[in-house]
């Protein structure tokens, strides 16, 4: 039998259905009598709706219904919500405008939802959508934070007249200013963190179904957290109470954050199913995805680092304007605040930090969590500052980092976080060796002989994952707890079903979670199935994001497994006629200590169900246990990524020559899967640095990058094979020692690439995305004079 225990490179159990075309994604699901929905979307970034005329559309062939915001309001369907309250510096709550699922009076970005047309076929619905006449009074849009904050700018929502949703801060301003006042050297940078569009390969989709016999709804949806969707659709939007609403997220084709949120289209499909008396299906096309999926990043930051005469960091100061788009998406307010500023200490011992963040409304798609969510933005600020500081001081960037690393754990930063474990020097040392840092100067000379500019860039990132202790996030404004649940059902023949509130949309939970169960219960991995993504099967859960499924989701499973084993020992004591205290469980066997009397796990499971060998009044029959696990702390994965690349100054073309990643994820269940997560994260980070950027026309507010012709996704040829390795300091804050790995690459990579590019071209003026055009321009600019000024 192949090794399937914790730490083994087990090929994925779920792959068979995907490689044979038998996956079951939402668009593969069709309900009897199903009709198709097409959304009428605003072609304008800002406009008042004077009139919507649906009379012609209603008469088109095959049309089942045409619904608008008025119908939603008449049914008392509430608006979409933002589930994280941020308070401004002055203590006032954030100023949020309403977010109706179908527009009521105003449209606020290109792609905003105006009406839905439902017809027998998709083509009929498309034709009828063309016949909906909307009379708009077009207004002037603001699409970037500078224009939105300018005097006299039009207000996106009346509730926030100057477009500031909040003016938030974190840290000790006085202590930070004092440190800057006595600093011997200050490094300052103006940083733009470019806006990204997530682009999971499966577009969003929904099928709403209403069973009038039972007055119950079912929503099939592309969700990373079906229970959260059900909670929001029930408790806030008011579609149906939770016991009358089943949410199913079957196979989901990637999320990267964009499928956390509760969007207009999914809401409308489930509501409309009752309204029109037919199942209603909507599948996003790619252009709709570009227009209406929540975008990511989009920060403008002024950042400064203060150092003493020896290059010891004294303080960090950052002032950030975060573009939140036209409406507050589900977790939008938390991303540039509590998921960002608490990470500004990076891996460094920084005595004083102060950050202020303005959240700003613009006439663009809502911005929310995208792989890393706030932590890539923080890492980019810290790692650009550190790199530039080292260059300005004439110090080696690796040594400068090492000199300032945190050495002792636990470490309390000045910005909330208490890092529990890590060894940053170990990761750096290993990365420098794997990258052959010593040989870089030679390789740079060799490139120069060929007329190429070679550069090397570091990124010593940290992230806060395993989100999160419920009471802690509650005190910071979260509207939910961030525990996870698990239920372990042992069948009478000893096979096991595990129901988890985590959701797998590419992460391979059906394998890693089964490895844990197989390891703990000593049963073959084939005898374990993992059930997720259906609110009728799994009672409750918080879903998958923030690299939490290992640290939190698996900890819940481990807790439930402990209870199963404890119950099994009670049963075994009766079966083996021994005291419970004498029963040991190891390698799938219950044994009476010091004897050869034992019973296999399957035998005890059967005995638990037939209940012949014990008194069913004293010990309950059956073998099924559940657990909720609430984490005690965030987890702190960290590592060093090194990017080495070559720029062609004639064309601005860039080639990544080598990528070295050394990450500390704590205990690893399945290295094959973890490495895959790192690879994918790096590719997304490289995409941000070199290729991807959402562009809105500043005059019209049109999204210029709304297809794969205009928004450049990383392709196979843009990337090298990666050198990926790990160091391990087990996480002391959860029972499995797991830190999480899902976002590391996307967090680390942008700074590593830009540090390498700026090293190559010899100055700091390189924007993201560093397209060939941008790099060619950068190559025309003279390199900086010698480092030490």
């Amino acid at each position, binding site marked *: 039998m192949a090794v399937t225990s914790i730490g083994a490179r087990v*090929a994925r159990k779920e792959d068979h259905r995907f490689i044979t075309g038998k996956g079951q994604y939402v668009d593969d699901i069709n309900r009897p009598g199903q009709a198709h929905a097409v959304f009428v979307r605003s072609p304008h970034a800002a406009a008042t709706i004077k009139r919507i005329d649906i009379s012609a559309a209603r008469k088109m062939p095959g049309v089942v219904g045409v619904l608008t915001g008025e119908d939603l309001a008449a049914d008392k369907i509430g608006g979409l919500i933002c589930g994280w309250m941020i308070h401004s510096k002055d203590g006032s709550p954030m100023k949020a405008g309403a977010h109706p699922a179908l527009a009521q009076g105003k449209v606020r970005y290109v792609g905003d939802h105006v009406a839905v047309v439902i017809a027998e076929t998709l083509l009929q619905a498309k034709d009828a959508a063309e016949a909906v006449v909307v009379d708009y009074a077009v207004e002037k849009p603001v699409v970037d934070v500078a224009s939105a904050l300018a005097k006299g700018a039009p207000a996106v929502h009346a509730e926030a007249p100057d477009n500031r949703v909040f003016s938030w801060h974190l840290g000790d301003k006085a202590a930070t200013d004092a440190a800057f006042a006595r600093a011997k050297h200050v490094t300052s940078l103006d940083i733009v963190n470019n806006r990204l569009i997530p682009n999971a390969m499966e577009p969003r989709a929904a099928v709403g179904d209403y069973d009038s016999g039972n007055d119950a709804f079912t929503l099939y949806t592309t969700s990373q957290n079906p229970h959260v969707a059900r909670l929001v659709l029930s408790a806030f939007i008011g579609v149906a109470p939770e016991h009358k609403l089943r949410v199913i997220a079957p196979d989901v084709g990637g999320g990267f954050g964009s499928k956390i949120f509760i969007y207009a289209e999914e809401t409308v499909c489930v509501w409309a199913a009752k309204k029109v008396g037919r199942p209603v299906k909507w599948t996003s096309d790619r252009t709709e995805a570009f227009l209406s999926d929540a975008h990511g990043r989009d920060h403008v930051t002024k950042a400064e680092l203060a150092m003493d005469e020896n290059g010891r960091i004294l303080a960090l100061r950052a002032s950030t304007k975060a573009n939140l788009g036209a409406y507050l998406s589900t977790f939008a307010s938390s991303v540039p605040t509590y998921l960002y500023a608490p990470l500004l200490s990076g891996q460094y011992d920084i005595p004083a930090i102060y950050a202020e963040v303005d959240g700003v409304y613009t006439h663009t798609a809502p911005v929310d969590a995208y792989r890393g969510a706030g932590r890539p933005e923080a890492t980019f600020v810290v790692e650009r500052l550190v790199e530039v500081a080292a260059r300005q001081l004439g110090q080696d960037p690796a040594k400068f980092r090492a000199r300032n690393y945190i050495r002792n754990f636990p470490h309390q930063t000045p910005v909330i976080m208490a890092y529990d474990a890590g060894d940053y020097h170990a990761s750096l040392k290993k990365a420098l060796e794997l990258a052959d840092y010593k040989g870089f100067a030679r390789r740079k000379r060799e490139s120069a002989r060929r007329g190429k500019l070679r550069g090397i860039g570091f990124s010593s990132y940290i992230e806060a994952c395993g989100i999160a202790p419920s009471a802690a996030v509650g005190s910071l404004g979260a509207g939910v707890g961030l525990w996870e649940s698990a239920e372990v059902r042992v069948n009478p023949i000893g096979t096991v079903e595990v129901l988890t509130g985590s959701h797998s949309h590419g992460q391979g939970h059906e394998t890693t979670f089964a490895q844990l169960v197989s390891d703990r219960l000593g049963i073959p991995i084939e005898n374990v199935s993992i059930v997720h993504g259906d609110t009728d099967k799994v009672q409750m859960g918080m879903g998958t994001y923030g690299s939490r499924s290992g640290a939190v989701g698996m900890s819940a499973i481990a807790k439930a497994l402990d209870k199963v084993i404890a119950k099994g020992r009670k049963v075994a004591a009766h079966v083996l006629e021994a005291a419970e205290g004498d029963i040991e469980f190891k390698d799938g066997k219950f044994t009476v200590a010091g004897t050869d009397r034992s019973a296999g796990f399957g035998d005890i499971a059967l005995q638990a169900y037939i209940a012949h060998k014990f008194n069913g009044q004293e010990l309950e029959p059956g073998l099924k246990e559940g657990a909720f696990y609430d984490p005690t702390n965030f987890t702190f994965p960290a590592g060093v990524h090194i990017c080495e690349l070559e720029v062609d100054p004639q064309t601005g073309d860039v080639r990544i020559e080598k990528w070295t990643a050394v990450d500390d994820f704590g205990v690893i269940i399945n290295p094959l899967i973890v490495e895959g997560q790192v690879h994918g994260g790096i590719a997304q980070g490289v995409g941000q640095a070199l290729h991807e950027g959402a562009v809105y026309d500043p005059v019209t507010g049109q999204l210029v990058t709304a297809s794969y012709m205009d928004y450049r996704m990383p392709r196979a040829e843009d990337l090298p094979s990666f050198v990926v390795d790990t160091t391990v300091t087990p996480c002391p804050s959860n029972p499995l020692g797991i830190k999480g790995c899902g976002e590391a690459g996307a967090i680390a990579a942008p700074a590593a690439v830009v540090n390498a590019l700026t090293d190559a071209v010899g100055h700091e003026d390189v924007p993201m995305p560093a397209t060939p055009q941008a790099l060619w321009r950068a190559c025309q600019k003279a390199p900086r004079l010698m480092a030490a000024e």
Partner: protein
Amino acid sequence: MTTVSLTVNGQSVTKDIDPRTLLVQLLREHLRLTGTHVGCDTSQCGACVVHVNGVSVKSCTMLAAQCEGAFVTTIEGIAEGGRLHPMQEAFREHHGLQCGYCTPGMIMSAIDIVNRKGTALDEATVRHELEGNICRCTGYHNIVKAVIAGAEAMGGGMRQAAE
């Protein structure tokens, strides 16, 4: 309506369709072969790649009516007699997929690359040839490994068949 007759995964099929029906719609909606996916509107992503008369085609770019008399193979049709195709096996073994959405198109493209470029593929060739297939999950690292290994296995398989 128009009538189209073709062979899909070895089975003869005749369907009355709207003339604007795309091949991918015929496969997904009329034949319920949902392994072929749609990931974009512009023939960029490659999630819909199938083989038409042995050559890879983006099925979102071809009208079903153009397939009159054609032999179409989809992801559902490459395993033979319950045995996975070597390229399917290689994707599983090398963790060449995560969410699985781009995977059918990737595998169909990979088989086509081998058909055109042979069974001894180097990394640069594979990366170049995958230009028309986008994956958001894997960073391509393990896809490239899988394609090289799958190509080798296809070579071994063919040699055996010739013996």
